[in-house]
């Protein structure tokens, strides 16, 4: 099956063979369970993110794929082969480390060619040189081959780390919080660059991050982890619109939680799905729940305004009002009594985990 056919089936579990798979993988460090009984299949050509707070087991999962850690129980498969117990240097995957881990004693080109030079038989010098040029061009660093690592900026080092991994054409590129060390502006640029790169090279990317925005904006699929377990896996839109639990709804995007119909449930309503107006009568048609609320706070965020409002029974909640509604209805002042409401389909009853 060639790459294009893989791409056609991209993301459809079960129809194509996974490129990396966890089967009932558990990892314990002493008494601490870092990863608990996880099943996960990464599909060829997809961009999958593992999302979760620090300590949720996402980095441990990645390290078990790379071969730096071995599972306490369960099995790891790469391209259908059981690689449980196989050391990192014999696995066809490569990693971009959080702080890049570039070799400080080697020039850029020697860093990039490192993987090829470990192969046996070693490729010819001319072949290596050509591959290095290609890899550097791919990350827009042509002509930087002779530079030393410490002469490069953070963003450039990041791209060298990418070139050093991608030159090996790994089955999967593992990225461990690769953008965490960059400043905000650069991070946005690199997000776009990573996405483009992934589309160009057609290599499966597996990214680990605690930044939900990063995970949502770049990935085909996101896998949310909590305390060593996978809570939900799905497209960014699925996670946002149909979270399986309070935890996912809270972690992915912003939301309001209200008392649910039973003790074990909560009502979740995304702030952008709440309408506000000067009075209950002025709320749009179709809005079923209508409340009289008091404006507690107002934050201007450019494309929208964030209100915090309070209702006598429901308590405080957040509303995102786009500029458009502002033009219709004007700004509401802090302390003003206004109306808020939402359509029935905005309501989501979730298990309170």
């Amino acid at each position, binding site marked *: 099956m060639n790459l294009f056919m893989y791409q056609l089936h991209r993301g459809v579990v079960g129809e194509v063979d996974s490129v990396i798979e966890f089967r009932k993988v558990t990892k314990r460090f002493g008494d601490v369970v870092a990863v608990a009984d996880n099943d996960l299949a990464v599909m060829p050509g997809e961009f999958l993110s593992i999302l979760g707070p620090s300590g949720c087991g996402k980095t441990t999962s990645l390290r078990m794929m*790379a*071969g*730096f850690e071995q599972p306490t129980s369960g099995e790891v498969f790469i391209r259908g082969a059981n690689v449980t117990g196989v*050391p*990192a*240097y*014999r696995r066809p*995957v*490569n*990693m971009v*480390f959080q*702080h890049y*881990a*570039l*070799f*400080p*004693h080697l020039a850029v080109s020697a860093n990039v060619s*490192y*993987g090829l030079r*470990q*192969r046996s038989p070693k490729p010819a010098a001319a072949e290596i040189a050509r591959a290095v040029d290609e890899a550097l061009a791919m990350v827009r660093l042509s002509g930087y081959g002779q530079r*030393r690592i410490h002469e490069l900026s953070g963003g450039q080092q990041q791209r060298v780390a990418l070139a*050093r*991994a991608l030159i*090996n054409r790994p089955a999967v590129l593992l990225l461990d919080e690769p953008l965490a060390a960059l400043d905000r502006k650069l991070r946005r640029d690199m997000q776009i660059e990573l996405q483009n790169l992934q589309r160009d090279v057609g290599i499966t990317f597996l990214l680990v991050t605690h930044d939900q925005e990063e995970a949502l904006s770049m990935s085909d699929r996101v896998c949310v982890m909590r305390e060593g377990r996978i809570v939900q896996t799905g497209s960014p839109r699925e996670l946002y619109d149909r979270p399986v639990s309070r935890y996912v709804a809270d972690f992915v995007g912003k939301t309001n939680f209200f008392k649910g119909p039973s003790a074990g449930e909560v009502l979740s309503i995304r702030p952008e799905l709440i309408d506000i107006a000067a009075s209950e009568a002025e709320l749009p048609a179709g809005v079923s729940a209508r409340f009289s609320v008091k404006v507690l706070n107002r934050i201007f965020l450019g494309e929208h305004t964030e209100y915090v409002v309070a209702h006598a029974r429901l308590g405080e909640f957040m509303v995102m009002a786009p500029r458009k509604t502002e033009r219709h209805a004007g700004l509401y002042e802090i302390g003003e009594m206004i109306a808020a409401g939402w359509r029935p389909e905005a309501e989501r009853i979730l298990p309170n985990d």
Partner: protein
Amino acid sequence: MTRSAGRPQILTAALLAPAVLLFAVMLLAPLLVIVVFAFGERAPAGGYAAAFTFDNFLNLPARGKAFINTLTLAPIGTLLTAVIAFPVAYFLALRCDPKWRVTLLVLVMAPFWTSQLLRYYAWIMLLGAKGVPAWLSYLGFPDIRIINTPWAVLIGAVYGYLPLMVPPIYVSLEKLDKRLLEASSDLGATPLRSFLQVTLPLALPGVATGAMLVFILLMGDYILPQYLGGGKVFFIGNALVDLFLQSRNWPYGAAVSLALVAIMFVTILVYMRFVLGGSGQRRVALV
């Protein structure tokens, strides 16, 4: 470089003055005396008589044996010490349980707590006829002599200077970013190749620093060859003791010590090029 604004130059000079004075008095002045002596003559009753002659330098080959001994045994001793110190430092920095690390490091330094003389006496016992050679012949090995041979001097050098070699290598291995080894493994390098391509090159500055320390001290040593070489394997240091204290030929002794200083100077230059050199870029700190 920008000069820190506001600090008067006179203050800078005043702050530097003690160090400069100390340096001039303690180092340059004696060196100047040695240079002057080296061109002088031995006074009839010993000591120095003013003259200007190159005879002392022309006579250097008379002490050739001391130079040859020093210039062969000091480098070999340094090399041996480095080869033995590296695994020790490697174990301490990368393999041993962190809770034992400090204890073990202290143990490495422990020999320094007793007098050098005492320790060399102990080695005289160990390497002497009733020591290791006796045990070996008891086990059926042919008779060998160790004490008063170059071997004894080398064993003493490794023993005596190991505590100086281990710490700089330890430091360079300790501050080695362990993620680099993971990166190397991730890129397909076997543990041996990771060691040769990452660990070793990054630890070399530490090895160079340790080697430098040991080499300089070993070159000037005279106690070690005197005790374990038993006067048969003598160093330049022994020649100097002899020339200054016994035969009281100060000018000739001054010439010999100037030759030693010259050799050291060249060694330090080579070291500077090696550790600080490369692409004209200061890559590593001294330790």
